């Protein structure tokens, strides 16, 4: 069925305010919920956080008092939406457990987007990035068993494999090599713009999460691992945000943001397995339809353009959380040794990359290596959840323990 958000009426803005009782949502069950329900919550939280931060930036660049006031009013509702969504996460889950779920989101959302992306240059950007978050999942899973004495398979539930990706040690590139070429706003397919916005928002939330929860840990290896992977997430935000055409006007960007919120709430409403959570996606979709209408009016007034010129005539197929095991294994087989040079990709470690590597590692093993070494020392092997056979890359197959 097709859905054009421009043709639907939402909840009027002056009826969107929720009271404390309405905001006090019941969290999902930490041990019985669908892992992909948790993934949708985490992804949607990232989208709402981006809506809020974007609106603040817009307000700071906006001379019109009327527009500022309207932005403030819509933004307050975005804030309430963020509370209602993120507060669905249960307090029983530790920050590290949420972290593993964040990386599961990064893996299965980015893989899905890569599979659906029509533009080959953009597709390459997603395929490149996903192998790194895939490796983060493996590193954090090793940490999880060490500090919390529980296995990551309890969290990912066999939907996502936990095996080495492109080793995190090699993610530390010179910042110049993280800047990609943007798509062309006049030529790009609408779906490409939505993809870029979605992954950028997810990575931004991941970066913010790691930079804030890292110091809550007491274990030195945990504190260090959050520093390291948090810095890689900075690279990912740089990588994905540079895909977005900076020539888009503020009005156009606002419309794209609201349209993307409609797209994702609609997607999650269509694919949600938990009826209670589905009702929240539906409610929020009805709110976003109104945000979108208001943004479209601003664009017509201030940009002198019809939003239909930049938007898709109907929503693309729903963003779906589903296993991507075969796809990821193919990437592991073919793109493991890739790095970036300028706005492109190369197979060889170049001079600027080597210099960055020397500088950041200082001649020592990084936390991402040490966490796996420590796990091996303690449990005899690293932690993996491998459901589809041996690792595609022979160098990353399980090494038998040295002592035995």
């Amino acid at each position, binding site marked *: 069925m097709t859905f054009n958000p421009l043709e639907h009426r939402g909840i009027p803005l002056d009826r969107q305010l929720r009271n404390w009782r309405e905001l006090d949502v019941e969290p999902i069950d*930490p*041990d*019985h919920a669908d892992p992909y329900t948790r993934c949708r919550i985490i992804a949607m939280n990232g989208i709402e956080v981006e809506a809020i931060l974007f609106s603040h930036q817009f307000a700071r660049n906006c001379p019109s008092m009327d527009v500022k006031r309207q932005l403030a009013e819509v933004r307050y509702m975005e804030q309430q939406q963020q509370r209602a969504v993120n507060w669905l996460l249960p*307090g*029983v889950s530790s920050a590290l457990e949420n972290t593993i779920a964040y990386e599961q989101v990064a893996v299965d959302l980015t893989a899905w987007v890569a599979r659906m992306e029509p533009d080959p240059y953009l597709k390459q950007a997603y395929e490149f990035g996903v192998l790194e978050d895939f490796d983060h999942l493996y590193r954090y899973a090793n940490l999880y068993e060490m*500090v*919390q*004495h*529980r*296995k990551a398979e*309890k969290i990912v539930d066999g939907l996502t494999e936990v095996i080495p990706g492109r080793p995190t040690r090699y993610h530390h590139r010179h910042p110049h090599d993280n800047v990609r070429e943007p798509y062309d706003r006049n030529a790009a397919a609408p779906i490409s713009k939505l993809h870029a916005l979605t992954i950028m928002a997810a990575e931004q939330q991941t970066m913010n999460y790691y930079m804030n929860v890292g110091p809550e840990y*007491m274990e030195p290896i945990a504190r260090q691992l959050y520093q390291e992977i948090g810095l890689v997430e900075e690279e990912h935000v740089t990588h994905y945000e540079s895909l977005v055409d900076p020539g888009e006007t503020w009005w156009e960007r606002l419309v794209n943001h609201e349209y993307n919120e409609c797209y994702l709430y609609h997607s999650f409403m269509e694919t949600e397995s938990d009826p209670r959570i589905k009702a929240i996606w539906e409610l929020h979709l009805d709110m976003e339809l109104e945000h979108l209408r208001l943004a479209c009016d601003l664009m017509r007034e201030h940009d002198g353009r019809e939003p239909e010129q930049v938007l898709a005539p109907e929503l693309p197929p729903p963003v779906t959380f589903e296993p991507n095991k075969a796809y990821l294994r193919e990437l592991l087989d073919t793109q493991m040794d890739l790095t970036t040079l300028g706005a492109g990709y190369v197979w060889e470690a170049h001079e600027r990359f080597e210099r960055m590597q020397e500088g950041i590692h200082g001649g020592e093993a990084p936390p991402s290596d040490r966490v796996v070494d420590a796990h091996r020392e*303690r*449990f005899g092997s690293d932690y993996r959840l491998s459901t589809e056979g041996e690792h595609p890359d022979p160098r990353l197959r399980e090494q038998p323990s040295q002592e035995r």
Partner: protein
Amino acid sequence: MSVEDRPEHAEDVIELLVGQHMLIRDLFAEVQTATGEHRAEAFARLVHLLAVHETAEEEVVHPLARRGIDGGEQVVEDRLHEEREAKEALVRLEGMDLGSEEFDAALALLRDSVLQHAHYEEAYEFRHLRGRYDQDRLETLAAQVRMAEKAAPTHPHPGNETAVKNLTVGPVLAVFDRVRDAMRGGGSQGG
């Protein structure tokens, strides 16, 4: 490797207890999804694990926290209060039919409060202990807890399958008492 083996890797008493918190959490989830005999058996394991775990905390860890951390008296009082409530809830559960909605509801409540209790222990108690006591001490205590765990009868007596059906490692309070005796005995033998 079964999940039950995992705390064996633990090095000190805090890691051991944190590992048990995870086992308790997973066991609650298991009881909730299990039915019939399997549910009775999983519930019996849960009762035993809670007895071992809470007793170890009462005998070994709370006294350290009481003396060793700022505001330790009050923090430990709060934890003991929660532990007493959990024990009472367990006693009520053992009087219920395992297949009943009443049991489901009471189990869900107990699970929430036990998991919250575990979180408080980790946040307000355990994380301060490592700074206060040296590693050797914490490791010795772990060994004591493990010994007591072994000394306390783990499973229903072999051949007592009907008893399993009636949920039994014995009445809940008796299990707690037995573990406590074993722990006190084990502690003095060890030291």
